[in-house]
């Protein structure tokens, strides 16, 4: 049963990837100008643009370009970045991606490690004492933070911690050999921003889910039996809430992958999202496609985990009629 679900999931994922690649291709082609025009910039002439286009293989009709790209990707070749290719400086995209993926994974990984325990703890605390001052404080602050866009959170944090207090650097400037405390300090600002934005959602959802379970009949039964509240939540309610909570966490991590676009830009962090923005500005189609594919795969995997968690934690879904 589970295997069939897995297989159908995998099929849907591949289709999603394909659809996304088509959409990205169409989207990038709709933007004004192409990579040849952007490279030559203000100093382009019709002749030099045509020559560079031919060199970059942009003179073929768009659908053919797409087919060529798709073939190469199917063979495991992400292609060569168009930026600089005209001058014979074509860098394989895989080489460009490697350090960027590492940087983005490092950032989101650290954020995840911090976000999950903090938000579960705060969410549970709030759910254990609904209506109290503590609960209201948590609800109020998370609601406020959810309403503030992440670029504003980032800018405010920079103003407070970097400009006024001078505790952390305003941008992430990696020398490449940072470890331990130095690394944490260098990454502190983007981590803090992402933790604040991501944890608010998870806290709220954890609280809501647990409270939802708390109102079900079997909990009422437990209360009537005289089971202490702490035991009810940690032993009976939490396990039934795990599915939805894992779901929320996975969805938020998937969101995080998108959220790093803004944060990487603001902190000048050399990650995958910043690379993608630069790729779009250059109309460097293969590079944009590669980044988009990676983001899409991450998203699909996380959603898949979320779905699996829901199915596994719920016997009714595990054995559908």
């Amino acid at each position, binding site marked *: 049963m589970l295997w069939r679900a897995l297989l159908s999931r995998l099929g849907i994922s591949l289709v999603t990837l394909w659809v996304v690649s088509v959409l990205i291709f169409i989207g990038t082609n709709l*933007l*004004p*100008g*192409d990579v040849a*025009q*952007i*490279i*030559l*910039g*203000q*100093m*382009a*002439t019709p*002749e030099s*643009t045509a*020559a560079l286009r031919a060199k970059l293989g942009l003179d073929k009709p768009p659908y053919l370009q797409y087919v060529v790209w798709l073939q190469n990707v199917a063979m495991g070749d992400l292609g060569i*970045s168009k*930026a*600089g290719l*005209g*001058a014979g*400086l074509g*860098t394989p995209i895989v080489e*460009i991606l490697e*350090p960027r993926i590492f940087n983005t994974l490092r950032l989101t990984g650290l954020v995840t490690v911090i976000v999950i325990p903090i938000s579960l703890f705060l969410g549970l605390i709030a759910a254990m004492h609904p209506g109290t001052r503590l609960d209201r404080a948590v609800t109020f602050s998370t609601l406020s933070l959810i309403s503030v866009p992440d670029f504003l959170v980032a*800018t405010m944090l*920079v*103003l407070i911690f*970097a*400009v006024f207090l*001078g505790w952390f*650097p*305003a*941008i992430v*400037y990696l020398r490449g050999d940072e470890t331990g405390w130095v690394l944490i300090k260098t990454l502190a600002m983007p981590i803090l921003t992402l933790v604040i934005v991501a944890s608010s959602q998870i806290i709220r959802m954890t609280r809501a889910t647990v409270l939802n379970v708390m109102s079900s009949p079997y909990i009422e039964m437990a209360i009537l039996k005289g089971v202490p509240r702490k035991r009810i939540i940690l032993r009976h309610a939490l396990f039934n809430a795990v599915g939805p909570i894992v779901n929320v966490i996975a969805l938020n991590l998937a969101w995080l992958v998108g959220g790093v676009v803004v944060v990487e*830009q*603001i*902190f*000048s962090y*050399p990650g995958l999202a*910043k*690379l993608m923005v*630069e*790729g*779009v*500005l*250059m*109309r*460097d189609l293969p*590079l944009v496609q590669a980044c988009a594919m990676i983001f899409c795969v991450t998203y699909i995997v996380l959603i898949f985990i979320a779905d699996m968690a829901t199915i596994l934690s719920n016997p009714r879904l595990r054995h559908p009629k």
Partner: protein
Amino acid sequence: MKEVKTFQQMYRDGHVSRREFLAAMGALGVTAATAGSLLTSASALAGTPTRGGSVIFASNLHGPDDTLDPLLGTSTIDYTRSNASRNGLIQIWDDMSLNAELAEEWSVNSNATEYTFKIRKGVTFHDGSELTAEDVVWSMERHLGEDSPSSIKSFFTNVTEWKAVDKYTVKLSLSSPDADMPYKLTQPQAKIVKANATDWLTAGSGPYLVDSFQAGVKSTHSRNPNYWRDTGQWLDGIEITAITDMNARLNALLAGSVDMITSISPKQIQKIEESGNNVLSVPAGLYGGICCLKNTAPGENDDLVQGLRYIQDRERIVRKFLKGHGTLGNDHPINVSYGADHCHELPQIPYDPEKAKYHLNKSGYSEAELFVAPVTGIIEDVCLLMQANLKKIGFNLKLKKVPSDGYWGAVWMKEPLNVVSWNMRPTANSMMGIQFGPNGNWNDTFWNSDRMGELLKDSLAETDAAKRHEMHCEMQKLVSTQSGIIIPYHTNVLDAHNPKVQGFSNVPLGQFGGNQWMEHIWKNA
């Protein structure tokens, strides 16, 4: 000290020229080297260079197309890296004069068609090999031909041959006279690299070695211990990066995370000065403007263009939008920073709504559409002001906002009315030629004047200073009355830096003194 400040203000306002300023400083007993840096910063008086330390420089743009090949350079960060690690044949210094660099000396024949360069002996590239005439010829030949990827190949279309006469002599032959050629050789793209270079990291002879380079991330540089000249090289190391977000760039400077940031907005100046950091403001020829295509409606109508010229509130633009860090535009690109070629006799066109109304009525148009993208600092504000002032006299200007990426290919030179920005070129002739040469590739208002073509050609061969000035005056008058360009203002080159970093020059051809600060600045502990 008070006199210095007065002169600085006069220089900034364009009342005295660069040359006059330097002369005045000499009269006050200031040494020539210090006077140069005084053009922009009062703190230079107190500064004594100290050795050691390193700086982090943050430019405004970078990406996967960053390059160490000087030929392909298109942005400040490329030029900066080029200047840090390479040398050119000739360089421009503080008073816009030409100075020997890798060419120890050069000579030109009487009609400016043949140049001979004597190459400096004993210069070594970073890989240890010696620089010879072969390297110069190889580097310069790369700019020739239709297929050349050079971003300045248009400067060298009149070159017939670069030839190594002997190991240390290079001869340049031209098909038409070009007295401006030495200036063109000062461009950052025209740096000399090792012949048949394969490793761009060690291909230069410049003051700083390239230790590492990652496109779109950063590069690191350390002092070249075998540099061929003594220019200080005070810094132990330089790191070059970019922060694309304007506010993030400012915050990085305020927080002390970087030492120098380029391309600040006039709106940020007050904040930077309050924070104790220094602003470097150098009057320059770069400008933002409006192109009215002369080969199509409505720009083909001279009255419409004239009306749009009179409606520009130039004083207010420079005072309010540029906070004084700019000069008034007179609808031609050659402002006071071009020195002797600037035509000060030409009267300044005023803000005159009555005349604007007269010309616009005569044109028969009552509305038009202008394509606007944030291609340069305040251009959007300028267009909004123009729209508001036009509304007062009953003309409806619609602003069509478009993004700046892809603008040069999709909008510029295509839509009848569009905005444009041009960087300063090393000479008035090259600036005028590139933008207004008849049927030129970048004649962005499609204004073709035979007289302009003649003047461009003749002034290049003219060696008499007075006659040359007269010719430039006529060109500036032609452009400002007949072409389709409207230039309300010229922006100063604006940068900001930590006050500990000192010794900047003020060449107006790029950020932080023409992008050539590396070997001259120092950082106080």
